[in-house]
């Protein structure tokens, strides 16, 4: 019994860490969706780019400046964030500006093409090799009561929670947050209110690249760095939808729930029920579809109002 409990709690803890990564991607989806109704299929690739930039900076800083240790990671982190801001502005210019008057669906397709381009470009610049990104916390592990969690994972959870709270407050309380919603509902009317729609768009793209970069930097040490890590975006979709696309608390909720489901079904569940193995990788989707059948707008989503 206790063995089962320790096993389960270990899986829950790992699942939360994994789920926070999903939550960071989902948060990126949410930000862009909130203001533009665009589902950004390139979010995973933004994450990949962020991770690569960070990797490049880390190796450059240690090689060229001779700085190592915590400072190296810190400077690289800041550098990557700076890059993310510039990158966000570029993306806004490239994707959003020209497509402002086009159907949302065209923009969604444009994000798909951007994801293809980014994957190819990064591979061409950085070469086809898979890299190893070390964690600033090394292999440090915190354990209590037979349950182990790496320091890296603790840091991931911390970052995810901080970011979610920040954005939640932003959307709830700030003028700009409400303006983003107004822009998504009716960009034309928003302009007539004096809301600088272009700035709003630029802002969300910057936010999205920032969140993605943080996510990428956090994810890379957990796995290896190659141009395909962006495919985690696909796994974050059910997380984003489960919580309600466009909802900030929904992002973290959906991410964590699916993270836990994933680890438990791969662990305890499949230990006791062998057939679970067959459906392991579609369990998130099964959960998602089941939830949507009951709540068509996700758990935290709000239904659109239409008046005739």
């Amino acid at each position, binding site marked *: 019994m206790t063995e089962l409990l320790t096993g389960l709690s270990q899986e829950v803890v790992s699942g939360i860490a994994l789920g926070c990564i999903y939550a960071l991607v989902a948060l990126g989806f949410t930000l862009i969706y909130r203001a533009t109704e665009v589902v950004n299929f390139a979010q995973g690739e933004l994450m990949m780019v962020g991770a690569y930039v960070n990797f490049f900076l880390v190796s450059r800083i240690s090689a060229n400046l001779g700085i190592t240790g915590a400072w190296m990671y810190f400077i690289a982190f800041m550098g990557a964030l700076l890059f993310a801001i510039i990158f966000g502005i570029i993306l806004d210019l490239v994707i959003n500006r020209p497509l402002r008057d086009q159907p949302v669906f065209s923009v969604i397709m444009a994000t798909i093409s951007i994801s293809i381009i980014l994957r190819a470009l990064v591979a061409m610049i950085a070469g086809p090799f898979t890299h190893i990104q070390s964690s600033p916390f090394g292999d440090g592990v915190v354990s209590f009561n037979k349950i182990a969690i790496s320091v890296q994972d603790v840091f991931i959870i911390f970052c995810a929670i901080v970011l979610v709270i920040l954005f939640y407050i932003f959307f709830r309380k700030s003028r700009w947050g409400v303006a983003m*919603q107004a822009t998504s509902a009716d960009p034309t009317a928003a302009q*007539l209110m004096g809301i*600088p729609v272009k700035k709003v768009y630029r802002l969300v793209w910057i936010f999205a690249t920032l969140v993605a970069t943080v996510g990428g930097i956090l994810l890379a040490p957990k796995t290896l760095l190659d141009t395909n890590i962006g495919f985690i975006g696909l796994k974050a979709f059910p997380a984003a939808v489960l919580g309600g696309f466009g909802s900030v608390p929904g992002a973290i909720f959906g991410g964590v729930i699916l993270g836990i489901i994933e680890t438990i079904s791969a662990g305890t569940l499949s230990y006791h029920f062998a057939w679970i193995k067959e459906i392991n990788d579609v369990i998130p989707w099964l959960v998602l579809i089941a939830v949507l059948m009951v709540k068509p707008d996700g758990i935290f989503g709000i239904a659109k109002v239409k*008046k005739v």
Partner: protein
Amino acid sequence: MLKLVGVETFYGKVKALHGVSLEVQKGQLVCILGANGAGKTTILKTISGLVSPEMGTVRFEGRRIDQMDPEEIVALGISHVPEGRRIFPELTVYENLLMGGFLIESGDLLRERLEATYDHFPLLKKRRHQLAGTLSGGEQQMLAISRALMLKPKLLLMDEPSLGLSPLLVRNIFRTIRRLHESGVTILLVEQNVNLALQIADYGYVLSNGKIFISGTYEELIEEEKVREYYLGEGKYIRRSRLWSG
């Protein structure tokens, strides 16, 4: 204050305005009349920057504004109550008003304006936390007008503000418009309710197929046979297919 000279506006390849020139003096209430599809809305959109003219100039207080972004134009003091209200359906009434006052930096001023608005339309205060999308047509219209008034504009553009309102409210709205006008706001009004509109307007322009075709004061316009015929329903019978021949 506002001056349009030879404005030509296109929707894609369709020309909607064929060289429109008109002028609004400071403190005036000017009214634009015209049949369905004549281009009234397009004039207002051109002024507020939602579409930009291919030809001609738009000047506001001497400055050219025809290539500016809508948000810059709003900041200059031109508010637009768009056709079909365009309130934000997923925001509450309060948030809608908040957005109307987006450019107001000071919190106190914002609160003051909000209170003023609620005084003006007490109904909105009652519905403050309702999602704007669930308001009735008239309520939405009130919201749209008060939203535009949040900024205390110098020039107010109104596109068919009485559309879908009950007679009592129509009169209320017109009274409000007149009051605003008297308090010094310059207004450019588009209306189908020709009688009422011309009664309060200082000057009127009649638009037909994207061109100004007559202009003048109420007295002058009311004398024009064509105006009476087309807009006041007093003329000879016009075949339906001609009436709506777009």
